[in-house]
């Protein structure tokens, strides 16, 4: 069968062509982008000076500034300059302490609204601006449109925060290949470079989040044994300790936004300077008050002692969960700019009684690992590496008395599905509500509400007769989906999801549409081009699958797929976007049993040790 080849530059699916992909570390304080260049992960620099893009956005009538230009306006125009947006993403107003943000925040529907002079912005839109900026940098440096990106999130992020991050990617026009945990990305960067094996601790103290994870690395396989941390602990808190000390001693009014911004910047300078110097002299006038101080490392250590202890406690918990003791640890990888602080290095070193791995730049490690992973997912590299991640938090449902029943415990390897059976408690009951929560605590109120699912169309029966099997699936990005079925009648119950946090799918769609300031015509040609790319890929891969595994199909199955292929090729020639989409969908569903059989064959071959090229798609 002669196959039509239409491919757009940068979007070709030819197996040997290098696909342009990037890794992004979307940080609280700074963000980075990296890509594989000539076989090694490389940070793409932002403006030919720095590798770091400050995660700060400034909104004004004239333009949107991102990075350093926005950062300069932090103290001048604090209401319209948004920093640390990662602390707001996937949250509602009740989750945060508004005093920590010099912004006008208010309750939106499932999100936090940020009131700026040009209107209301939400954290997803703000994060999308950072991602857009990184995307532009990458497209310029790599010379063309990107095929996809791996974006990192703290291991401790819950479902709502992960979903919101994914939504931000979509809004920025990036095709997301996978969300991976930051510490995992760090280990990828170290593991591949150093060919390490054993149990590793990833100690990640960033600007706004702290994560500690225990990983087991063997034979090109990364397994996360446990993760712990605090989504509200980071370098910013160490700055705050200095801010509190100074404002108390010099009676500075930190309620005044300008004073707060100035003193925060000063505190950060003091902290960073103490990483290189044993003591720092400070002489500065703030709001007419002269500040004169000599800071020593010891003094700083006393101010932040409680914060250091918190990191060590979390490390202990992670070890407990992984059922390991300190002497079973083969290495400690230090990640995040805040691990440059000598007091942190000393504390971790003395807790584990061994030297630390910190030879890669702690600011860059995560982005480098993400770039390596993106390259593997795109099928560019030959690396025999597989990342097995775990659920960061337990998933449960609300039962009588607001008690949580755990369905999927934390640290379960992904992807995972667990089924739970429910029954009706009234005669003829046709609907039922399930409240899904995430967290480790016993009471619903102490956990995070994820969503309320309403099951409808349950066949009416006497109370207790219906058996409703509800399946909770968590995919490799750590995101939850739910399906339900009445098992005695095999009737699928329909599910309405009301997410407790974040945006509904419709809202995302509206945001996406309004973000495209394209003319209707351009929009249509874009959709047609995308449909063609998808169709071509499906044709090519189906053809390849048939070449190797045709023998798995019965005559009728084979002719069905061949017909589907023909229909899709005809649709392509028509250049009608709806026809192409429909034919693609049809062939996809026709090929599903074939894909299942091929998967089974792969399992068999994996165990007989035969190499199979057909899966290296």
């Amino acid at each position, binding site marked *: 069968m002669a196959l039509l080849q239409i491919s757009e530059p940068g979007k070709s699916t030819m197996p040997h062509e290098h696909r342009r992909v990037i890794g992004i570390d979307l940080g609280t304080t700074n963000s980075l982008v990296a890509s594989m260049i000539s076989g090694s992960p490389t940070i793409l620099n932002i403006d030919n000076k720095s590798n770091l893009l400050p995660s700060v956005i400034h909104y004004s009538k004239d333009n949107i500034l991102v990075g350093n230009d926005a950062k300069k306006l932090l103290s001048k125009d604090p209401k319209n300059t948004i920093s640390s947006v990662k602390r707001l993403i996937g949250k509602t107003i009740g989750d945060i302490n508004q005093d920590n943000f010099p912004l006008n925040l208010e309750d939106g529907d499932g999100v936090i609204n940020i009131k700026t002079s040009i209107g209301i912005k939400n954290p997803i839109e703000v994060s999308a601006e950072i991602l857009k900026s990184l995307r532009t940098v990458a497209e310029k440096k790599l010379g063309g449109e990107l095929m996809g990106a791996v974006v990192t999130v703290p291991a401790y992020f819950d479902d709502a925060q992960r979903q919101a991050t994914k939504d931000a990617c979509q809004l920025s026009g990036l095709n997301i290949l996978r969300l991976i945990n930051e510490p995992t990305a760090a280990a990828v960067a170290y593991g591949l470079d150093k060919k390490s094996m054993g149990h590793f601790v990833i100690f990640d103290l960033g600007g706004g989040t702290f994560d500690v994870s225990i990983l087991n690395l063997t034979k090109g396989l990364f397994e996360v044994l446990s993760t712990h941390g605090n989504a509200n602990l980071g370098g910013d808190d160490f700055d705050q300790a200095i801010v509190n000390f100074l404002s108390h001693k010099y009676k500075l009014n930190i309620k005044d936004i300008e004073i707060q911004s100035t003193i925060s910047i000063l505190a950060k300078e003091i902290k960073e300077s103490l990483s290189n110097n044993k003591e720092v002299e400070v002489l500065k006038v703030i709001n007419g008050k002269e500040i004169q101080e000599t800071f020593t490392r010891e003094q700083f250590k006393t101010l932040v002692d409680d914060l250091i202890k918190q990191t060590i406690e979390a490390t202990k918990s992670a070890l*407990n969960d992984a059922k390991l003791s300190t002497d079973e640890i083969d290495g400690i990888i230090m990640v995040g700019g805040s691990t440059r602080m000598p007091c942190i290095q000393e504390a971790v070193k003395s807790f584990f009684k061994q030297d630390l791995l910190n030879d890669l730049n702690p600011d860059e490690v995560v982005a480098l690992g993400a770039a390596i992973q993106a390259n593997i*997912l795109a099928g560019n590299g030959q690396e*025999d590496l597989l*990342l097995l991640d775990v659920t960061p938090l337990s998933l449960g449902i609300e039962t009588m008395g607001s008690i949580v029943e755990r369905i999927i415990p934390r640290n*379960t390897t992904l992807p995972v599905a667990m089924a739970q059976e429910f029954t009706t408690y009234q005669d003829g009951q046709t609907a039922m509500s399930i409240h899904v929560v995430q967290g480790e605590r016993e009471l619903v109120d102490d956990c995070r509400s994820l969503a309320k699912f309403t099951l409808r169309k349950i066949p009416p029966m006497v109370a207790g007769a219906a058996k409703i099997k509800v399946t909770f699936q968590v*995919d490799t990005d750590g995101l939850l989906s739910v399906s339900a079925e009445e098992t005695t009648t095999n009737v699928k119950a329909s599910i309405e999801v009301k997410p407790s946090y974040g945006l509904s799918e419709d809202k995302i769609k509206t945001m996406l549409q309004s973000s495209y300031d394209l003319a209707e015509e351009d929009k249509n040609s874009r959709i047609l081009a995308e449909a063609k790319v998808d169709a071509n890929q499906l044709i090519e891969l189906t053809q390849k699958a048939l070449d190797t595994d045709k023998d798995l199909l019965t005559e009728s199955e084979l002719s069905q797929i061949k017909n589907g292929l023909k229909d899709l090729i005809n649709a392509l020639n028509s250049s009608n976007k709806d026809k192409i989409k429909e034919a693609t969908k049809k062939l996809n569903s026709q090929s599903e049993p*074939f*894909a299942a059989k091929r998967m089974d064959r792969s*399992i068999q071959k994996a165990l007989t040790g035969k190499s199979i090229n057909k899966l290296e798609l």
Partner: protein
Amino acid sequence: MTQNYFELFNLSEKFEIDSEKLQENYRSIQKEIHPDRFATSTENEKIQSMIKSTHVNDAYQTLKSPIKRAKYILSLHKSVEKITLPPNFLMQQMEWEEHLEDIEQSKNELVEFKEAISKEYEQCFLLLKTQIDIEKNWNEAAITIDKLHFIEKLLNKIKITLN
């Protein structure tokens, strides 16, 4: 999809298994079918890879844990009935719990207690091996599984107290 977990990993259906082979085969399989291998593939392959990978994870977790593995073998052979633990074991449970509370503060005694309970665990484990692999006495095995389950939880409690 309904393939026997032991067959899936190419192992014989026994309580005593080669855990290294289990781990190795698990990894070989995941390397082929994990969704990461299909990140740029077609929709139908993405879906199938997700389904299979989930199934393989479930099977692996079941066989990896001795208690889950034992329960799984039993489920292949008999319908699970409600079992009652012998009264003397219930007494023993209470004594152990009380003892742990009493020695909470003493590291030495905790270490000693941990060793004693580890021995109990090993004994139960050996017994289960005989009951399942040799005697095929499913009813007695069901009781031993429950005991083992309790002892495992107790051991974890001791370890956490120690740390």
